[in-house]
């Protein structure tokens, strides 16, 4: 396979795709870089001028930046914890032989296929609505005051919605990992006198370390950029309570019409994502080796 000829052939056949991908990636990045150095307001067309790093200074010193950074981390962290803590028992349950297991699996996985916008709307209008929502009705059945989710605990409401969307993903990855656990290992543990709990702690959980790492890494990438759920439900509010970095950039660009500052924010988000990725790979990535 690895003759010089096949290598050359492989490279020349790959080149168009790689080239296209590269252009696809580099053009927006270069434009963002360029815009981030301009004074560029959509309210004041024709006034574009080079301002150096002024946009970055403006974005980073904005009090909204720190608040939204904190919100981003809270959102990512909470959803990760929720999906893994609920995903493991769910995966264990779905691994049991029960009647109609395939249907149950399909149902559990369904939320993952619902568009974020749609699921946010369903949660907002059908479940969490303080007057006509299901939760409000339930509260009233028990004689409690319905919770106005998006005003009283907006961040928690967002976390619930996003966790609901990502739980199937975590469950699915963990379930496939459980199914790859060698049956003879469990039997060996049984012969060794391990109880169900001990088998879980000493055999199953270590086996799940790698898929949990995968879940954490992949979910983090997507959770850093959660947008639709916030846009549809709270619009970043009340105040800045549910504004994350992605939403802050959006509001810079299309609420305040400041493209320059939004571009700078976009680049800051890229840097933050890379910092998070760096630490994640450091902390959990060693599970992926060998």
């Amino acid at each position, binding site marked *: 396979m690895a003759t010089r000829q096949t290598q050359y052939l492989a490279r020349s056949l790959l080149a168009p795709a790689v080239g296209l991908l590269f252009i696809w990636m580099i053009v927006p990045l270069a434009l963002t870089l360029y815009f981030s150095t301009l004074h560029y307001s959509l309210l004041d067309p024709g006034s574009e001028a080079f301002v150096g790093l002024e946009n970055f200074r403006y974005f980073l010193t904005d009090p909204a930046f720190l608040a939204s950074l904190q919100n981003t981390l809270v959102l990512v962290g909470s959803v990760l914890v929720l999906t893994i803590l609920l995903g493991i028992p769910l995966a264990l349950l779905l691994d049991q032989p029960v009647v109609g297991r395939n249907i149950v699996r399909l149902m559990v996985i369904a939320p993952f296929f619902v568009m974020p916008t749609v699921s946010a709307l369903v949660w907002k209008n059908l479940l969490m609505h303080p007057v006509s929502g299901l939760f409000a009705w339930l509260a009233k059945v028990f004689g409690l005051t319905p919770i106005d989710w998006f005003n009283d605990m907006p961040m928690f409401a967002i976390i619930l919605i996003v966790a609901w969307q990502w739980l199937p993903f975590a469950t699915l990855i963990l379930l496939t990992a459980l199914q790859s656990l060698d049956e003879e290992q469990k039997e*060996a543990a049984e012969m060794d006198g391990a109880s169900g709990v001990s088998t879980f702690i000493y055999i199953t959980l*270590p086996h799940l370390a790698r898929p949990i790492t995968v879940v954490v890494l992949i979910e983090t990438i997507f959770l850093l950029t959660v947008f639709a759920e916030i846009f549809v439900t709270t619009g970043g509010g009340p105040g800045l309570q549910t504004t994350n970095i992605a939403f802050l950039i959006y509001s810079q660009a299309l609420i305040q019409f400041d493209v320059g500052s939004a571009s700078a924010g976009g680049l800051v988000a890229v840097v933050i994502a890379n910092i998070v990725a760096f630490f994640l790979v450091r902390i959990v990535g060693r599970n992926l080796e060998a």
Partner: protein
Amino acid sequence: MGQITLQGVQKAFGPVHIIKGADLDIADGSFVVFVGPSGCGKTTLLRLIAGLEDVTDGRILIDGKNVVAVPPAKRGLSMVFQSYALYPHMSVRGNIGFGLKMAGLAKDEINRKVEAAAATLNLTPYLERKPRELSGGQRQRVAIGRAIVREPKAFLFDEPLSNLDAALRVQMRIEVTRLQKQLGTTAIYVTHDQVEAMTMADKIVVLNGGKIEQYGSPLDLYEKPANLFVAGFIGSPKMNFVTGESALQRGAFTIGVRPEHLKIERDGAGGWPGTIAVAEHLGSDTFLYVDAGQLGMLTARYIGELSLHAGDRVSLVPEPARIHRFNESGNAIRG
């Protein structure tokens, strides 16, 4: 003590009867091999004894106590799995000591026992390694270490050597046999390899289609096979079977002669004449596959080198005392 008795043990998975009633008496300290073709139920029988499967009917007695309702860990048996089933995230020390840890032994006692077991198996330098850093033979020894450290009443081996290459298999075969003799613990060993069965066993159980065909010492099985199946299964190359006139002359429906009990005469007079189809020269042995016309293909074995080649005419003369006779239903005729 480790005396194991099976009484009318049956196992069915739904409508499929895997074990159709097994009765067996395994003496304390003996090495018993279950052998048979794949699908004969030998692994299932072992798993029934281990407690990894529930019996459908019958009793399993360990030291006279019926254990069919006792969970695996409480039966006092330990098992070596075909895939070794080592715990991949634990060191060798952790793997060997896991059963003791689950039994709630003190740490220093676990360490002492693990180190003693490791010393027996030459694993001491590898105690802190993970299974993936070990070779196949070392992993095999860890699996055995995990079994011996618990000082069980009996070892159960489920085709433990089938993942090793041929040379290592021979070496491990000897090591396992020696270890078992040294510990004096009862062992039940499942294999499909009749050479392993013949070399390791004190007694062999030949299984076929969920039934015990014969239970006896290796040489018993070789010299007095109870039926056609055992006769064909034990011994390599396979026994030659001849039906028709030659058999009827000797008062049997089928007669069987092992390849090593056929005398090879160069000129095709007397005995069974035929043409050599293939001649295999191994130096130590010569195997001849002879086309004997109506009798079909016959295999003959000659100890040492015999310069005969494909196409040569030979005559095969069975040793009269070594002819096995079988009736219509395939059972041996004695006397």
